[in-house]
């Protein structure tokens, strides 16, 4: 064959504006999945303070003697940034769950015609749940 022209990767991802529901769902699911596994590792790391906690280690927080585990958790929870990240985590988890359910349905061959609608529904529900949870997540924290 004579020469031909390869439009390369730019063609592939430069076209994001033209992506359809299914592609976005795929990208979001990937992204949220990675965040979640990343979080799982951090989560266990943080919880590891309970090993010391169990041995009765304590630390002084604001003049009070607290179990290390309790102190770490409450210390983190006292940070506004962490609370915000938690809301983010919730959003990520909720989307991953909802879209995960959508994918499970797709795998079972149920409701394939509605695959795009169910993706939009997942997005909207995620948004709604996240917004609704903000008060719960942000109680008792000061900036």
């Amino acid at each position, binding site marked *: 064959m004579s020469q031909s022209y390869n439009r390369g990767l730019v063609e592939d991802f430069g076209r994001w504006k033209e992506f359809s529901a299914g592609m976005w769902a795929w990208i979001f699911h990937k992204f949220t*999945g990675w965040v979640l596994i990343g979080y799982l*590792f951090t989560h266990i790391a943080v919880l590891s303070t309970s090993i010391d906690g169990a041995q009765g280690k304590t630390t002084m927080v604001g003049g009070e003697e607290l179990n290390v585990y309790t102190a770490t958790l409450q210390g983190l929870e006292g940070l506004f940034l962490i609370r915000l990240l938690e809301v983010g985590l919730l959003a990520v988890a909720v989307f991953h769950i909802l879209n995960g359910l959508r994918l499970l349905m797709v795998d079972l061959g149920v409701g394939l015609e509605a695959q795009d609608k169910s993706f939009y529904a997942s997005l909207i529900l995620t948004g709604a749940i996240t917004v609704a*949870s903000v008060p719960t997540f942000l109680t008792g924290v000061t900036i």
Partner: protein
Amino acid sequence: MAERYSSFTPGGTGWFLQRITAAFLVVVLAFHFFLLHFVNHAYEVTFMGTQTRMQNVGYFLTMVLFLITAAFHGVNGVYNALVNQGLEGGRKKAVLAVLTLASVALVAQGIYVALAMRGMI
């Protein structure tokens, strides 16, 4: 044409387990979130509270299982994603090894933590 595929096909198993674990995770993750953010608020968590919950064998076992499935699901997911992106040959094997080690470590550490929470260590 025949050399395009091998008769040994692990793909299906991984795919299947990813779905099974997902189905399990839906329930447990929802439960977990609900319990620790809405019933008990995260900022109120204390070692005492955690210890009390962990004393319940059912809860303890659920959490361990949660950990194992989540670790498998997450790591398998990452692995599949990388393979789908064209990871091949030696690098693929290396990634698999690293991921397996990481997840085993994660599970081991997690169980250790959970036992500690129960006060068994």
